[in-house]
């Protein structure tokens, strides 16, 4: 266990270093540099800017400075917005994304598992077919198209919900739905198949034979074991919601980090792109790590060891 954790930590550190180095290399090999734009800057201004952002230091020094700053938790300034740093951008925008993300994760876990359990218990009946058709459909629609359709139907045609912005609970409904459609579908399918497998096990027959009610058998015995594959999916789930948030936040004008990231991509605000990438990567790796630990804690049969996978 300890060895496994150490190895994971080691891999994570190397991966993070790799990401930082790659982002750094990319940032410094983009033709023209960060201040190249249609408008020609006067030579003196350009020089001043480069001076200010240490762009005329030797490359290795810039690299070590960048590493040092990241170790201190400083991701550098924004080149496009003079008074913002990447840190301040993350600080002011990430909470919104985190709220929306948590809402979507909760929604997809609850609805997905519920749908999965119901369709497993009603296998090959209309409830099952309905759930699986819905799941397959949400698998096949990219999130930005789904967001568009949701907005068109519920905001423009029916007028039930506001089409954009953030703040009230009504405004949170559509983005949450759009963001959680794909993971909900995935969890429903996962839960259904693992539930079907568990339902055939002998220990469930035993539980029934000793006189437990149907309800107790399913809640206490079946679901508890069937839930395990869903727990392993939580890591990828967070990643899906995170990348999905780029699209959903942009479309519904939610002032989160995802939207900011998309804007920096179209503004070519390199330090923000790189800083947010590093931040997101570290965040996701940490989450995956925690999920792994949680998994071995939930299911004691899982031993986190160094064993070689085949």
């Amino acid at each position, binding site marked *: 266990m300890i060895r496994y954790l150490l190895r994971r930590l080691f891999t994570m550190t190397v*991966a993070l270093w790799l990401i930082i180095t790659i982002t750094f290399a*990319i940032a410094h090999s983009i033709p023209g540099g960060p201040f190249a734009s249609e408008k020609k800057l006067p030579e003196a201004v350009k020089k001043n800017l480069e001076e200010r952002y240490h762009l005329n230091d030797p490359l290795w020094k810039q690299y070590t400075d960048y590493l040092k700053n990241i170790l201190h938790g400083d991701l550098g300034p924004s080149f496009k917005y003079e008074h913002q740093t990447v840190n301040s951008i993350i600080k002011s925008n990430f909470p919104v994304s985190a709220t929306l993300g948590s809402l979507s994760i909760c929604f997809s876990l609850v609805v997905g598992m519920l749908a999965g359990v119901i369709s497993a218990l009603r296998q090959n009946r209309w409830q099952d077919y309905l759930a699986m058709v819905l799941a397959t459909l949400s*698998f096949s*629609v990219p999130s930005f198209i789904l967001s568009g359709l949701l907005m068109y139907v519920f905001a423009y045609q029916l007028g039930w919900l506001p089409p954009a912005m953030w703040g009230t609970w009504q405004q949170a409904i559509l983005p949450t739905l759009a963001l959680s459609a794909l993971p909900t579908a995935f969890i429903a399918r996962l839960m259904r198949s693992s539930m079907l497998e568990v339902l055939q096990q002998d220990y469930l027959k035993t539980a029934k034979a000793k006189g437990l009610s149907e309800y107790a058998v399913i809640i206490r015995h079946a679901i508890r074991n069937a839930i395990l594959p869903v727990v392993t999916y939580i890591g990828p789930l967070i990643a899906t919601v995170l990348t999905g948030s780029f699209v959903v936040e942009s479309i519904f004008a939610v002032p989160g980090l995802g939207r900011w990231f998309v804007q920096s991509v179209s503004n070519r605000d390199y330090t923000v792109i790189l800083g947010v990438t590093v931040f997101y990567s570290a965040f996701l790796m940490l989450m995956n790590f925690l999920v792994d630990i949680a998994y071995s804690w939930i299911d004691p049969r899982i031993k986190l060891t160094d064993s070689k996978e085949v």
Partner: protein
Amino acid sequence: MQLSPQMFEPLQHDGTAAEELGRPALGYWQDVWHRLKQNKLAMAGLITIFLLAVMATIGPYLSGYSYDAQDLTRVNQAPNAAHWFGTDSLGRDLFTRVWYGARISLGIGIMTSVICLVVGVIYGGISGYLGGRVDEVMMRIVEILYSIPFLLYVILLMVYMGPGLGSIFTALGLVYWLNLARIVRGQVLVLKEQEYVLAARLLGASTMRILLRHLIPNTMGPIIVTMTLLIPEAIFTEAFLSFLGLGVSAPAASWGVLASDGLQGLRSYPWQLLFPAVFISITMLAFNFVGDGLRDALDPRMRK
């Protein structure tokens, strides 16, 4: 009645006749095809893919408009007799553009899949076959790359290389090969211990020959499934990149570009989003059905 030996006729035991009573001898791939044919969803998917491919080839010529011909007197028209899918904000015929986009989207899916095949098979094959220290190092590298959130990585690569078809192939290819490499390695690791590999080596076959002629063909099943499922994923990712403005550059258009253009005028001209959306979804469904069907058909445990 007297029984005499003449009254009895020994039954001829014929081995070949007994064989014939069994099911006809089928090769592995015939068997797979046989099982795939029974899967209605997979067959529907296959037919859909075929139709999409046909339309991607001839579709752009059917309406008589060019995909980049603008007509500013007829912008944002609803579907009508002249423009079957309507027109976009620059007056371009959407029917032509949808099928032209099909070429690009399907092309991206297939090319990405092929690039991943080449890279993944070589990497995974070498890693699995050589084993030992080399395998350890090569797989550790894969593990590290795996822990990098790949969409962010694709975005970074695209920002670096700039929009365009070439960059999309490269970026997607660079990211998606990992899974294939892992699968190939796992398969090769099992297969290389088999006697026929030993026999081949004994006959003096080189490592490369053993890999390419003996090991890789036997790993084809899982590879094909992974490749089939990779195509819709690549199309999905490309659509996502187009939304970020990192897709193919105008006037060329993939389905993703068309859909994200359609998003702009959603309120007044919903069909501009609807048509590309419908075709993306149909393509996703078709490839996923075929991929799932293939996986079932290739699984020997399903063999009856």
